[in-house]
């Protein structure tokens, strides 16, 4: 159990900056998720913590120890790989036992600890099988068991669910959540899936192009995105972002007029709101008025898209909402649900 500190950690290959001045303290027992699109440097950051990638600049502390120059084996970490990384020549039992064996844990403890780990991930029936004889979900559970058998200081998980099908992903996700609750081990989890990030994380770090965009609890990131990148990445669907100008508290753009915004801001801005916060106004007179571009039934609700402010804007409507594509549509977007971002830098404008 320990906290992890990254102090201005950078990774460069030649001129290419993979991770730029990553600065963060991760608390003991915290579940931290690194979230971002592919190539944003999240996996590189994790691999630097694991010791699989050299650190160009900065310092990483695990507990009190500076680990920059330590081998992966000396960092007291366990890692779950995207492709599982199971040893194909060993049985499931031997796979789980391997960390105990190489670290010379007393032999008489092995069996008990392997069985305990196997039980936690419900693998006790498969211990004699080879990895090749297991399904994807079972393989991932072997990888999890191999990580927890040793009770390391830190768990690192590199997109552990991305090779599983959608249904299995949901159940394995809750298994990971439960494991963390039980073991209380500091965990760093890398994913590009914002739903995984939302459901699992104590705190989320959103990254883009090697730069940290925002650090916060899932709710903070959802409710108060720090810039247009985070706003456009988090949520399903992502936040609507429309371009326009603001003056005297009135935002105007293509097909949009929103009143009651703070009068302190003026000039070109990007305005954001979430599809689920807006509502249809069947009687007309809403802030957005445009012909329907498309109408999609999602199951629990429907999604109407219209063109406004140079973008496609989604509005959630009740599932029994019936309209033709092309017919007039009006949506209520009160000033209270709106977020304002600087049109140039994309940064959030505090209101």
């Amino acid at each position, binding site marked *: 159990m320990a906290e992890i500190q990254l102090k201005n950690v950078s990774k460069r290959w030649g001129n290419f900056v993979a991770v730029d001045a990553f600065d963060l303290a991760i608390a003991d027992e915290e579940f931290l998720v690194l979230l971002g699109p592919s190539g944003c440097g999240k996996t590189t950051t994790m691999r630097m913590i694991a010791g699989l990638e050299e650190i160009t600049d900065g310092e990483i502390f695990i507990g009190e120890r500076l680990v920059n120059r330590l081998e992966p084996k000396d960092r007291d970490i366990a890692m779950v790989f995207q*492709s599982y990384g*199971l040893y194909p020549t060993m049985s499931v039992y031997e796979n789980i036992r*391997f960390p105990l064996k190489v670290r010379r844990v007393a032999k008489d403890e092995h069996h008990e600890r392997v069985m305990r780990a196997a039980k936690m991930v419900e693998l006790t029936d498969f211990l004699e099988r080879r990895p090749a004889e297991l399904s994807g979900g079972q393989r991932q559970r072997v990888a999890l068991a191999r990580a927890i058998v040793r009770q390391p200081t830190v768990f690192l998980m590199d997109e552990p669910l991305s090779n599983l099908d959608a249904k299995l992903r949901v159940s394995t996700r809750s298994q990971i959540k439960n494991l963390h609750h039980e073991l209380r081990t500091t965990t760093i989890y890398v994913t590009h899936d914002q739903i995984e990030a939302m459901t699992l994380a104590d705190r989320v770090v959103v990254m883009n192009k090697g730069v940290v965009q925002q650090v916060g609890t899932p709710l903070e990131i959802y409710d108060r995105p720090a810039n247009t990148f985070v706003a456009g990445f988090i949520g399903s669907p992502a936040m609507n972002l429309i371009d326009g100008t603001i003056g005297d508290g009135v935002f105007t753009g293509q097909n949009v007029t929103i009143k009651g915004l703070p009068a302190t801001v003026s000039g070109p801005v990007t305005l954001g709101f979430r599809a689920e916060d807006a509502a249809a106004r069947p009687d007309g007179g809403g802030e957005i008025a445009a012909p329907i571009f498309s109408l999609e039934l999602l199951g629990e609700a429907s999604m109407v898209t219209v063109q406004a402010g140079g973008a496609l804007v989604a509005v959630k409507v009740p599932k029994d909402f019936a309209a033709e594509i092309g017919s007039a549509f009006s949506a209520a977007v009160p000033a209270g649900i709106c977020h304002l971002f600087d049109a140039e830098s994309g940064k959030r404008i505090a209101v």
Partner: protein
Amino acid sequence: MTAKTRRRPPVLAVLSTAFIVLWLVLAAFPFLWTLWGSFKVQGDFFSRQDWVNALTGVHTIAETGGPFTGRGYYGAWVTKEFWRAAINTGIVTVSVVLISLTFGTLGGYALSRSPHRYAFWILIAALIFRAMPHITLVSGYLLPFFQLNVWGYLTTAIVVLVAINQPFTLWMLHSFFKSIPKDLDESAMVDGCSRFQAFRMVIIPVMWPGVVTTGLFSFLLAYNDFAVTATLLTQDNQTMVPKIASFLGTTQVQGNVMYAVSAVVSATVPLFLLVLFFQRQIVSGLTAGAVKG
């Protein structure tokens, strides 16, 4: 019904079976003929009157009193001390295989995991050396070997054979290692292995079919080599292949050619045993699909 419809037409079955039998006979004939002839005397096996003598063994019965004789084997192994050559071959091949595999696995692994560009150029250099005729290594070093007084020893032949063989083992093992995902090394290292432990405890077990296949090819190169062993070894230190050649070289004396025939048979048997014993590993090594987790 279904079984009947699935069966091939009888004509096709007969034809394909006949073809396979014919092919087997053609392929096995030279060896079977040599094996049979090695138990005859020269007058029969190399008969000038009638080739059927080789089958009936007229002279063999006349000379030895039986249709089969072990004279050729006795002459080669005891009189001409072919056993010395067999031991020498054993020493040379085992040493070449062990040394090539040690350097090959370590070097191939390092090259396959190296992020540097020079790894590629090392492999290209290895390919060039592989393409060179073997004899160039021998002729170029013959004079220095004489001057250094190392000519004629088994060790010298081993070193030269390893040098000839190493580029090939390096290439072959390199591509085997390439096919093993890096994640395997990395998870081993996170689990508590040093780089070398990861190599020894995780990668090599997965690589085993590849190591066996490469080892077998190295074995065959050393075992069958003539150019190096014939020019670099003294009469006493000769291995089997040049020894067999020397039996043939003195055909004026009757019986010697039969020594060569029986020596050839003796030298082939271990190869059969070896391939039979390792066939499973060789097949999976050649198909190389076995390494995927």
